[in-house]
């Protein structure tokens, strides 16, 4: 191979630059700042969401999928959670009734994780408190 040394140094520099974010995360000791969610007074007072908070954080989209399927296609609109409490399955009328601060609750996380759910193209956002 001609110019072996040049090519190899070039490759090493290239990989070093490409993997900078990885090394930065590893050695800077800083954790990526997780978005801070604000709870409305109503959400604070209620303390628990439809399901336990830990479950909702990871799986709220699964729950919403289930709700959507059930409401639209089966016409069944009441959700009975693991504690036997009943909820009206509605994004605007139930979820956003408590979390009426969409921009400080839904959007913060969605922006952080770069997901763009298209819920709001149709579903309305309740007036802010």
């Amino acid at each position, binding site marked *: 191979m001609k110019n072996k040394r040049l090519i190899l140094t070039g490759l090493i520099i290239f990989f070093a630059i490409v993997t900078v974010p990885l090394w930065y995360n590893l050695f800077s000791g800083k954790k990526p700042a997780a978005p801070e969610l604000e709870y409305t007074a109503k959400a604070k007072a209620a303390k628990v969401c439809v399901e336990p908070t830990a*479950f909702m954080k990871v799986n709220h989209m699964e729950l919403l999928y289930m*709700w959507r399927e059930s409401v639209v*296609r089966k016409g*069944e609109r009441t959700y*009975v959670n*693991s504690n036997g409490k009943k909820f009206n399955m509605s994004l605007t*009328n139930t979820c956003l009734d408590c979390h009426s601060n969409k921009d400080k609750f839904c959007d913060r996380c969605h922006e952080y994780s770069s997901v763009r759910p298209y819920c709001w193209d149709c579903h*309305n956002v309740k007036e802010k408190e």
Partner: protein
Amino acid sequence: MENSRRMFLKMAGITAAGLAAAPALTTLASSGPGEKHKEKPVGKVMNNADALTAKHWGMVIDTRKFTSASDLEPIIEACNKIHNIPKFDDDLKAMMFSSDKKRHEIKWIWEEEFGHLFPDCENRYLAERLRHIPFLALCNHCENPPCVRACPTKATFQRADGIVMMDYHRCIGCRFCMAACPYGSRSFNFRDPREGLKEINVEYPTRMRGVVEKCNFCAERLAKGQLPACVEASNGAILFGDLDDPDSDVRAALRGRVLEPSLPFITSYNNMRWSCLIQR
């Protein structure tokens, strides 16, 4: 490059090292611990306790009670308001008689002339009166809906109680259903409907650009134990009930009627809008 045992072992070694490094890389790339696998919710779903239910929802419109467009207006308005049906003012400003006036029109329940609604009943001896009376038109919620057969994504489907529904989440906007519907009951959102809404009923979603929409027999109201908006606004001119229940209002209204154009009591119910023909 020479194929040798030495070369093969080298390559195998590099591959193994790469595979071993993969999990380390994924850890570095992830946002830290705490990422869990998705779980399905454990709760159960059920019908609302106060929901109105039927085996076969049907609607009867007593057309004798409507004599002018102003009789229909509050009914249409009630539906439009509740379901966030847009009206595009800039279209309405188009030239008089221009078809542009209606090019973005969305309609769930609307005013129609007799000949368009009952073309087979129209003839030259038709009572003159009928030519000048407006009629209400809406989705028939057909028993064997052609739109459902045409839909490639099952975005439109028929519920067990006969209501033909739209699942806007699944609609890809191909408009096959519009071509299939013989009654023109479906409208396509060429524009973002929110542009044409002055007031939004927050409790009911709007649609987005690129989906087809139509009347849903107020499925969302039935679930809350309310009658459809048009029925409520009609002062008894529109009946709504279970066609499979012989004691229901709708069945009582149909019983013993001979439906002739000269007797303009024209029913518009689930499976046969053309009851004037069928019952003749």
